């Protein structure tokens, strides 16, 4: 997911009898389905967990521009180039709404940015994989945005108002992203033999990293249980992963492509597909910074930030001069 393994209190969900009156009233509001707004009282851990989660989601949108940006200058037609530009622009916009939502919790965008650039905060593991052929633009839209939607649609009902509202706007755009991705895959899968090879190659490389996006099983996770009690996580990782596989495998079949998992089979009894677990040691390597593109992604963001310092400083200095001139004229 765009936010993976977000830590909460680490102590499990408190029993109502252990809660203070304020905490109990807060939990009751959440249980009733009330929205928590920035000026409302909230437990410190709720605030901190949300900052981590929304911040990580925002960073994923920002870093997520890079693997697709990699193909904008090589898009094969003017229309594809325009669509891809629009999509990457949407992602920057999502980053902006999410940073704004995080700011309502008392953290600045600059602080979050510093934490991303120093490696203190994470972004989704998926963006540390390379995009190697044009069909990757299809696979990213279809599978990566598809996986993100699984998580983000329920988050429209999350307990924190600014986050839920940001998610409503984001979901509208994500479904367009997924459709355009599938549309690229259709063209490729029904195209020349070379194009079909590109499509299969992209699916082979993206399948397991997409499954990893949901994070390892969190059935036993205390963090997860707390986040679910607070309704800032709506479904378990396994539940979402299963839903994703159930929806995606028939789409791959329709394309005439093969999911790179020989054990992926329909299970009549459970009414869903059985499938292999991704290689979780690879997942933890990527999270630790050893994914194929971690170094490049972070270096690219750091370079953009460092090279842009004179621009940000210049525009700030101008705004201050302008304001001083306005005051002097009064």
């Amino acid at each position: 997911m765009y936010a993976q393994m977000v830590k909460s209190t680490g102590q499990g969900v408190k029993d109502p009898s252990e809660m203070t009156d304020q905490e109990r009233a807060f939990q009751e509001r959440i249980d009733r389905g009330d929205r928590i707004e920035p000026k409302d009282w909230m437990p410190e851990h709720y605030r901190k967990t949300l900052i981590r989660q929304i911040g990580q989601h925002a960073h994923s949108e920002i870093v997520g521009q890079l693997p697709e940006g990699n193909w904008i200058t090589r898009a094969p037609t003017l229309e594809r180039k325009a669509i891809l530009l629009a999509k990457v622009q949407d992602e920057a916009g999502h980053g902006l709404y999410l940073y704004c939502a995080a700011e309502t919790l008392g953290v600045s965008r600059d602080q979050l940015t510093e934490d991303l650039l120093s490696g203190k905060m994470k972004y989704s593991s998926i963006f540390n994989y390379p995009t190697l052929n044009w069909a990757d633009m299809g696979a990213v839209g279809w599978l990566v945005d598809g996986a993100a939607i699984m998580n983000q649609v329920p988050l429209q009902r999350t307990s924190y108002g600014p986050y839920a509202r940001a998610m409503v706007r984001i979901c509208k755009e994500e479904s367009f992203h997924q459709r355009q991705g599938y549309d690229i895959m259709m063209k490729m899968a029904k195209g020349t033999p070379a194009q079909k090879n590109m499509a299969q190659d992209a699916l082979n490389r993206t399948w397991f990293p997409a499954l990893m996006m949901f994070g390892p099983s969190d059935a036993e996770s205390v963090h997860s249980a707390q986040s679910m009690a607070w309704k800032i996580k709506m479904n378990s990782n396994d539940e979402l992963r299963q839903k994703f596989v159930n929806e995606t495998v028939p789409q791959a079949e329709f394309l005439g492509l093969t999911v790179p998992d020989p054990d992926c089979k329909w299970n009549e009894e459970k009414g869903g597909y059985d499938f292999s677990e991704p290689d979780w040691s690879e997942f933890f390597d990527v999270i630790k910074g050893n994914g194929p593109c971690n170094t490049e992604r972070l270096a690219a963001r750091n370079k953009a930030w460092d090279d842009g310092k004179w621009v940000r400083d210049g525009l700030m200095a101008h705004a201050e001069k302008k304001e001083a001139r306005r005051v002097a004229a009064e």
Partner: protein
Amino acid sequence: MQQDALFEYLLRLGDNTLVLGHRVSEWCGHAPALEEDIALANVALDLIGQTQLWLGLAGEVEGTGRSADYLAMLRDVWDFRNVLLVEQPNGDFGQTIMRQFLFDLWHVLVLDALQASSNTQVAEIAEKALKEARYHLERSSDTVIGLGDGTVESHDRMQAALDLLWPYIGEFFEPDAIDLAAQENGVGPDLSRLEAAYREQLDRVLKQACLTAPTDFFAHKGGKTGFRHSEHLGHLLTQMQWLQRAYPGASW
């Protein structure tokens, strides 16, 4: 206007937006601030959209079945008709925004004039594109002013960008047989009249930006006639056209 001259004239309009749109799109994900990333992508998107219209019409006028995509992806350097300014590399953000400003200022003037074109299809595209170009100009001139009148460093970088790109302005206004044919047929404007308006507005913005216009009026040329592009264009096309060249005949 003769069909082949009109075709050339339309290529100039479409190649300018194509090449500049491509250059601006190279910034994607690497801009100095999130707002700039969004704005640059937006400008690139508008320019690519305009390219589809201009090159689409060029293909129609030519009448041999070449589409906008064909014209964009399968012509070589010598067949491109964009001015040299737009193919110049992005450089730092200052160079990118100065190049954008110098282009936007011309673009707004030319599109405004083209709204009155005797060719109704040209007039219609110009009307649509002008709305976008006005917004581009507002943003690029504000940014040039902001950075020119910002810190010492931002000022010096903007002055360096202006000095570097200054010799590429003149090509806009140097009329050749195609421009004159467009003017005579009422398809396009009188370039000398545009130049006066351009220089006047340019001076106004540079003054606010605390920047000094170079006094040398030397102008590089050869882009819009296609006679002699810079070395940069070939590399840009190598990237832009790669898939279409490597997999001929595929549908994307």
